[in-house]
């Protein structure tokens, strides 16, 4: 199964890739929403893990596009918050269709388990 990881923070993106590889998935990385959409169209992912505040195209916009193009796709939104804190962004992500949300910093095992749970339902 393929997982698309979208985050503009290099270190966070690398960590997400390592966690997902550790959990046994194939991983594709993207530095922002636009690049993520481009890669998803070329190689559709089964699940997308996306940050919310990013350059070029924000996470909320990415979630909207993903759900529009692939209504069944599983999405996990993560955020370190911004001017108004993660609690303000994450519920919006859920409203737009994210299946699970995580506030940075998060427990990598909980994330891995959430991915398994979402993909296990397929």
């Amino acid at each position, binding site marked *: 199964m393929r997982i698309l990881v979208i985050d503009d*923070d290099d*270190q*966070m993106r690398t960590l997400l890739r*390592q966690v997902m590889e550790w959990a*046994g998935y194939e991983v594709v990385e993207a530095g922002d929403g636009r690049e993520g959409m481009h890669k998803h169209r070329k190689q559709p992912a089964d699940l997308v893990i996306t940050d919310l505040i990013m350059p*070029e195209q*924000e996470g909320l916009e990415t979630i909207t596009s993903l759900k529009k193009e692939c209504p069944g796709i599983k999405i996990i939104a993560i955020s*370190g918050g911004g001017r108004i804190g993660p609690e303000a962004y994450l519920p919006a992500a859920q409203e737009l269709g994210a299946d699970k949300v995580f506030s940075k*910093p998060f*427990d990598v095992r909980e994330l891995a388990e959430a991915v398994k749970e979402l993909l296990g339902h397929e």
Partner: protein
Amino acid sequence: MNGTLLLIISVVLAGYAVFSVLFYCLRLQPRLQPRPPAATAPPLPAGGQAPPAAPEMVSGLRMNPVLQRAVDEWQYTFDAIIDPVLILDSERRIVKGNRAAWQLLAVNGSPIEGKYCHQLFAGADDPCVFCPMQTIHLENKSHCQEVTHRYLGRTFSVSCSPLLDEGRIVGFVHAAKDISHQRNLEKRLVHAYKMESIATLAGGIAHDFNNILGAILGNADLLLYRLPPNEGRNGAAPLGPPLTLTEITEHIQAIKRAGARAKDLVAQILAFSRQSTNQRRHLLIAPVVKESCRLLRATLPATIDIRVAVPEGIGMIHADPGQIQQVVMHLCTNAAQSLENNTGVIELSLREIESGKAEQLRYHDLAPGRYVVLTIKDTGRGMPPETIERIFDPFFTTREVGQGSGMGLAVLHGIIVAHDGVIDVTSSLGKGSVFTVFFPRVPDAAGTDDEQEKVMPKGSETILFVDDEEDIVSMRTRMLSHLGYRVLPATSPEQALEYWTKGKERIDLLITDQTMPRMTGLQLAAEVSTLQPGLPIILCSGYSEAVTLEEAQEAGVRRFLAKPVDMRLLALAIREILPNRDGSEE
């Protein structure tokens, strides 16, 4: 015809009367004993102290009615002035005070006449260290300054003018406008704005910190989860393939990199929190703008493109670095908030201009001269003309409730005006806004005014000059050396004290800055006074209210000079303090 004649006579008499009274008050009165308050005082407000009445008698001579009326008119006018006004003799003794002065200074109705100005304002036996009359004696012209008298618990805007008789100072007119309320309001406003800035900044910093923590904790967790249970960890067998040494190294390096990022971020936060009030000095603005941009990049969403154009060779301004950073940060934060969907461009630029007629026509408050111009341009939603008109009003905001009080631009305007600067804004709806800030460019330190130098008194004593700003020490060392003094420079209080502990130098005068790390100028002065009792000390400080007369006297400070210190005043003050030694004045 008769009516006209009477009018002319009345005017002449009134003129004579006013002249006589002024002459009496300003010239003769100092030689007389203070008068007790008379019984026929003008009507008083409830609870007010009684100033002396108009002098209907002068040394037993009864005035004619016209003269009496003129005297009364003068007294009523004097008493109608809402600020305390004092007429002082040349020794700073009060000759006469108006009603407001009596209300402020008279204790239990006792007369204020005959008492020294400093007795009533500062409760002190000696003149205040920052007394404007000292400056008037040196310069022979009027002087205005802000003074905080802790004895009265008030801040005054004092204007003091010499009363001259054939060029000789025979007294002073001292007017003190109470500005405590304004100053308190300003302090509260600045504090509230700081709190708002900190809250905004905290949100931005939190985003970056959460990413860093995510990397540290995530990598650490991943290591722990993947380590076999017999390697110091209990629990279930790890998932997935076993960890290789390369992978372990990779995780540890990722933790280290994240730690280094956190360290940088802390440095940036500390740079921001170094903001202090009113520590103005000669400042290169370009590094402050660049540092602010680095901080903005960490706090604003990455979707905002921040472009900086700072050419080489931008000159110095006289400014407080913390406040300049506050100006840049706030204007950029505002610009960011005007961008739709946090997407767009903010451009910062610096340039120098010579203000000509075109600039003065456009920017009405701009005086002729050379300026460093800071421009902050955004591609945001812009503002309509009615918003631009009110943008610098306190509490005016276009943001929604809870997103900001709208005090920021008003405070910023205050900061810029306090720096003798001008701020201008142009905006176009849907296209963006441009904020332009003009700061007067100050001449480089090397550009000393030759004319002023010629009239500066010189000397040859040894002066220890202490300031934590290396540029200031180097500039002052050059200037004082040029005046003939032997200058021992020190860039820290500790370095200054070494001159005594090593005991090789004979020092005639200490000039010290007040605000320095680890030890204030006052503490240094007190320490030095124990090592060399009686050593004359001049204290230079950015704000007079930070030092009380008692503290200064206790520490052995002989003169106080407000920063930025005028070189000529410093040269005069040195000779005033060291008059009996080598006074080779020009």
